[in-house]
């Protein structure tokens, strides 16, 4: 928490988020506002809202495959990896689509995606990945 003018940033956000007598409906709080209110990380707030997805793909080419890959990105090998010292800031370079960030939703999620991407790079397997509108990779199958 940053301190300015003797008041914490959280406290100032709290003021902004607090209901007012003139409100005519409940205040819609963003994840950031909720995080400030409850002194949590944004990621922790979002974890509650978003249900984890499960794998649905069958091994490519298997006779029993009932659902094809509906992944947004496929067939592009990972040709580079990037990470820095800040938390959950791992990226991969897909051969055609370029740099994509691995979902920073949670510590374990970011770590497991990083391990999976590194594995895909090591074995030369092009992943089947989903990305959100911001271009972040939110799920990845690697065969």
């Amino acid at each position, binding site marked *: 928490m940053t301190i300015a003018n003797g008041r914490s940033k959280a406290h100032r956000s709290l003021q902004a988020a607090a209901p007012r007598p003139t409100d005519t409906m409940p205040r819609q709080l963003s994840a950031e506002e909720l995080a400030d209110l409850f002194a949590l990380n944004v990621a922790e707030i979002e974890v509650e809202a978003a249900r984890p*997805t499960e794998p649905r793909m069958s091994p490519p080419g298997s006779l029993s495959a009932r659902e094809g890959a509906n992944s947004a990105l496929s067939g592009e090998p990972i040709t580079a990896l990037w990470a820095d010292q800040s938390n959950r800031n791992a990226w991969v370079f897909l051969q055609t689509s370029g740099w994509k960030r691995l979902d920073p939703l949670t510590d*374990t999620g970011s770590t497991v995606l990083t391990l999976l991407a590194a594995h895909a790079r090591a074995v030369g397997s092009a992943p089947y990945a989903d990305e959100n509108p911001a271009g972040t990779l939110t799920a990845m199958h690697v065969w």
Partner: protein
Amino acid sequence: MAESEKYDVDAIRAALRKREVPWEANENALTRMSPSQRAKLLGVPLPNDEEQAKLNARGKKIRQEAARSAARDATALPAQFDLNDRGGVSYVAGVRNQLNCGSCVAFGSVAVLEGTARYTRGTPTLDVDLSEAHLFYGWGSTVGVDCDTGWMPMPALTFATNRGITYESEWAYSPGNSNGGSLPSTWEQHRAKATATADVTNNIQSIKNHLTTYGPVTGCFVVYTDFYSYHSGVYEHVSGAQEGGHCVAIVGYDDTLGAWIVKNSWGTSWGMSGFGYIKYGEVWIDTWSNVGVTGVYLRTWTAGKKVLGAYATGHDRNGWIYVQDIGWLKVGGLTGTAHIAMFSDLLTAKEKSAYINAFSDDGVVTQSYTY
């Protein structure tokens, strides 16, 4: 039939020819038995006359509807569906033999569990050989069931749902439990458990929906004398008396033949290598007791298998592995560190094409060896 009377396959063939009914009779292991030995194989007690009349009326209605819908209306279901042959692959392989004990309900129920376990995972080679002995001599005996009393599918599959049953390797089947098998105290670490039962009795559409969505259902029916000699074609009762009640697993259907595809538990000399066709609405096959399950949890070691795929999202501890013959398993972990440790080990196995042995607790890996 008198005990000394020989089973007359020729007479049955003559009756079939006379009625021009499209199935073939043949000698087999059952036709060579004595009448009392055959009677022993029937493990479902026949209902009273009033109930029989009701079942007969239901069957008649189904036969009439089936005859009318020769021109199929456009439903989402295919005209043919066979779990024993999905593009050359079977989810219900392995015909068993109950031998001389009226344990058919256990065999039909286990066929439902095994077929559903494989089909819902999309893994036809999943190793899931479950213990009919546990279901029949274990759970069945707690409610007074034995080789002579018979049983019904709903209570059997309810035990499988609420309590679970172990694998064949823990308690192997023998007629009358003559091998003296019993339940090991550690059985709950090696067991299957159904998610819920589904009663689709007397509803053709529901039976077909269940087959195509989840897997097999049971089918109990009245056995007439001619049924023992069924060899191929679409069975309907032509000759002989009521012998008793029996239970099989329905594993598919064929609208062009107007028949259910069934998996029996009388060995491979009966029918088409142990399978057969029974006409829609015949002998109460679709009106008496059709029960399935909606899924099967498995708690077991994977044994030596390879990791073929992996999956992850940004959510907390949501790493998964795809194990050869088994399908997707979620990697567990009481802490994030534990999850990452197991996931990392299993990913290494994938990279090296090495064998793993992981403990799957109802689909979640809680321990893993990587070699």
